[in-house]
Structures are given as structure tokens and as C-alpha cells.
């Protein structure tokens, strides 16, 4: 994908015209592994559950939506505020959280988030980071190195990163993994809030998370193997 002009980040809550469309969208990692062709259209505001067996391509689909992966076939269009967003520019309007997202071991929790905000060039970096950390319950842990966190706390940091810029589109891959009950309530709260301000796509097999959704994409492909 070519590097396009960075779109200005959309912050306002009134981004109701959000749509994610897949047209014959498919991805092939290797023979027999990947995402089978799929057509779908989901629109915000709302919460979309992406479900299916292991290996069927849920994570792949989310990566494509987030602009991290260029599909080998078909296309995926994301429209925010009426403006289509090219894959190279999706990071300005998509908040992404997934198991494969990791942070710098040598940096502290606060430094990791500050790196993210500084790289985006946002003024008021500190405030956004602090707010996100407070939101996910990591308020007292700013000085802890990422390597020292438990898996549950790491997952909370991932959620903090995903909501950091209050994105119109929130893409979460198995957000409840490693989390205790309080953590799952946090996920439910975040999804509720996102339902009002924009669109959330959640890949999950957890019934509790599926129940939070009002739209659903069910993947039914071959799905053997891990898209690593």
C-alpha cells in the first residue's frame, strides 16, 4: 500500500457514519491457511462480534481492517465520517488490541504509552496516557516495566493502548483473554462506550463478549492452522 497523506485524527464523538465493508475479501498465508473469501458490511455506531472456529481467520480479518495486513484478494473499505480511509492511514482512526501486540520490555507502562502519543505528534500526550491508564485500572503502575507485568495487566495495557486516542473504530482481538472478572467488566464498559461513539469489532469465542454485540460476522471457512 502506498504511503498516503496522513488523515487528521478524528476525535469528535459524532462520527456516526462509520462503515466497514468487505468485498470478496480473502487472505492466503500458505496453501490452505488464511481467510476464505467473505463479503460483509457493518456500520456504526454499534458493536460487531466476529466469531468462528480457531484458525478460521478472525485475527486475519481484524488485521486487515486495522490496515496491518494487505489482503491477497478482494478489498476491505473503512469509511469514517463519510471519508474512506486507505489502509496506510487507518492507524489514525482505528484503535487496535490483540494478543500479538506487545510493548517494549525495557520501558515502563507510562513510557510505552507516551511513546505512542509522541509518535502520533499529539500535544497533551501525558494527559491522554494518564486518562487511558486510569480507565483500565493501571493508574498505580506507571513506573513498572512492561516485562514485570502479569499477563492480565499486560492485557489491560493493550486495552489502554487501543482506547488511547478515542478512536472511531475499535478493533479488539480476544479482549477478555487473561482477564479476571473485573477485567471482563472493564471490557464490557469499554464496548458500551464505543457503541455510542463509534464502531467496535471484537473477535471472540467467549459468549459473554458475543452477547454484548448487536451485529455479527460469522466466519465459516476451512480454518486449520495458525496464521503466524
Amino acid at each position, binding site marked *: 500500500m502506498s504511503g498516503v497523506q496522513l488523515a487528521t485524527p478524528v476525535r469528535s464523538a459524532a462520527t456516526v457514519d462509520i462503515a466497514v465493508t468487505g468485498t470478496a475479501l480473502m487472505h492466503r*498465508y*500458505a*496453501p490452505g*491457511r488464511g481467510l476464505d473469501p467473505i463479503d460483509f458490511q457493518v456500520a456504526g455506531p454499534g458493536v460487531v462480534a466476529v466469531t468462528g472456529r480457531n484458525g478460521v481467520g478472525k485475527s486475519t480479518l481484524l488485521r486487515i481492517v486495522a490496515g496491518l495486513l494487505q489482503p491477497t484478494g478482494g478489498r476491505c473499505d473503512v469509511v469514517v465520517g463519510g471519508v474512506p480511509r486507505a489502509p496506510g492511514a487507518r492507524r489514525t482512526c482505528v484503535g487496535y488490541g490483540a494478543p500479538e501486540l506487545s510493548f517494549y520490555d525495557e520501558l515502563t507502562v507510562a513510557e510505552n504509552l507516551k511513546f505512542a502519543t509522541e509518535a502520533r505528534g499529539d500535544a497533551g500526550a501525558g494527559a491522554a496516557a494518564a486518562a487511558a491508564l486510569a480507565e483500565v485500572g493501571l493508574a498505580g503502575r506507571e513506573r513498572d516495566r512492561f516485562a514485570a507485568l502479569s499477563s492480565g495487566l499486560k492485557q489491560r495495557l493493550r486495552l489502554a493502548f487501543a482506547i488511547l486516542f478515542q478512536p472511531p473504530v475499535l478493533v479488539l482481538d480476544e479482549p477478555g483473554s487473561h482477564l479476571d472478572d473485573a477485567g471482563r467488566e472493564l471490557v464490557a464498559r469499554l464496548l458500551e462506550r464505543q457503541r455510542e461513539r463509534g464502531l467496535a469489532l471484537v473477535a471472540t469465542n467467549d459468549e459473554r463478549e458475543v452477547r454484548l454485540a448487536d451485529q455479527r460476522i460469522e466466519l465459516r471457512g476451512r480454518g486449520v492452522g495458525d496464521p503466524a
Partner: protein
Amino acid sequence: MILRGLLFAWIAAALAAGFLWAPIVPGLGPTTRVLYFHIPAAWITVVALAWSMLHSVLYLRRRRMDHDDHAAAAAELGLLFGIVATVSGSMWAKAVWHSYWNWDPRETSIFFLLLIYGAYLALRSSIENDERRARLSAAYSAVAFVTVPFLVFVVPRLYFSLHPDTVINARGKVDMDPRIQLAFLAMLVGFTGLFFWVLSLKVRLSRLERRRAERAAAW
């Protein structure tokens, strides 16, 4: 089938002409014969490189695995022909200049090309995922493409700096006897045909293997 037979007949005829009919270049003696396969091999090495790089760039723009097949097959053949050219050239150098390797401009250039081929193929063999392999090796090929011209400028310096008194390249091709020229050009054409024929076989093979793998995975 007919074309293949024709190709072999052509090369055989050209070789026969070169060895039996064309005269010997006075300065080179019996070693003249080397130019019938050494230079065509070197020529193909360069053609293969250009073909491979072209298809690498095409792959990056169009993302069709066909282009990756061509790039990889051309690189493998280029390496093979390159080795043939280097070895035959080295033996020729020993016969004429009494030294297997002189780092003269042409020798340096062919060595450099062999290194690039080697690096490209080593890179390919270290990636399993075929889409990633195609993409990364194509990227490498594109980088190599921009650096090759610089070597052309740099080689004379290298040559003069390390071996200021080496014999200058005595391959006086300017006045070739017309019979030599004819046999030589015929071999050039024959080698080119050989290269593209084997290339087409390799590409077809890759395509079939991929199709078989996909069908197997579908079960």
C-alpha cells in the same frame, strides 16, 4: 517438442561450427574455443539478473505469484550460468595470463553478480511463507538493482588500486574473423534459447507445485 529438438540441433551445429569450422584467434591459440561458451554464459548471467529484477519489481506492483516464479527461476539459472562463466573464465585466464584470478574489471563484476545471486537465494531459502518470501526477496532484488550501477563505476578503482600492473584485458573482439563471429553469435542465440526454455520449465513446475499444494490443503 519440436522446438526443443530444434534448440538442441542449433546449439550442436553452432558448437560444431565453432570447434571445427571457425579459425583460431592468433593471440589466443586453441583457447579461442572458450569464447563460444564462456562469453554466452556470462551474457546469460546478466540477462538472467535483469529478468529476475524486472519480475521482482513487477511482483511488488502487481502481487502475482507468477512474477515471483520468474524471479526465482531466473536467479537460480543465473547463478548456474554465472558459475559456468566464472569457472570457464578462470581456466581461460590461467591458460592465457597464467593466473587463475586477477580481480580485473570483468572478473570482479561477475564475482559481484554471483554474490548477489547467492544472497538472494539464501534470503529466499530462509523464509517459509511464500507470500512473505516473494515480497522480501523482491524488495532485496530491487535494492540490489540500484546498487549494481555503482559497482560499474567503482570497479576500475578497485582494480587499479590493488593490482596496478595486471595485464590489461586482451580479449580483442573488435576484429573477429567473420566465421568466428558467426559461430559466436549462433552460440549466443542458442544459449539465450536454452535459458528461456529451462526458465519456462521451472516456472511451470513452480506453478504446478503450488496448485498441488493448494489442492492438497483443500482436503
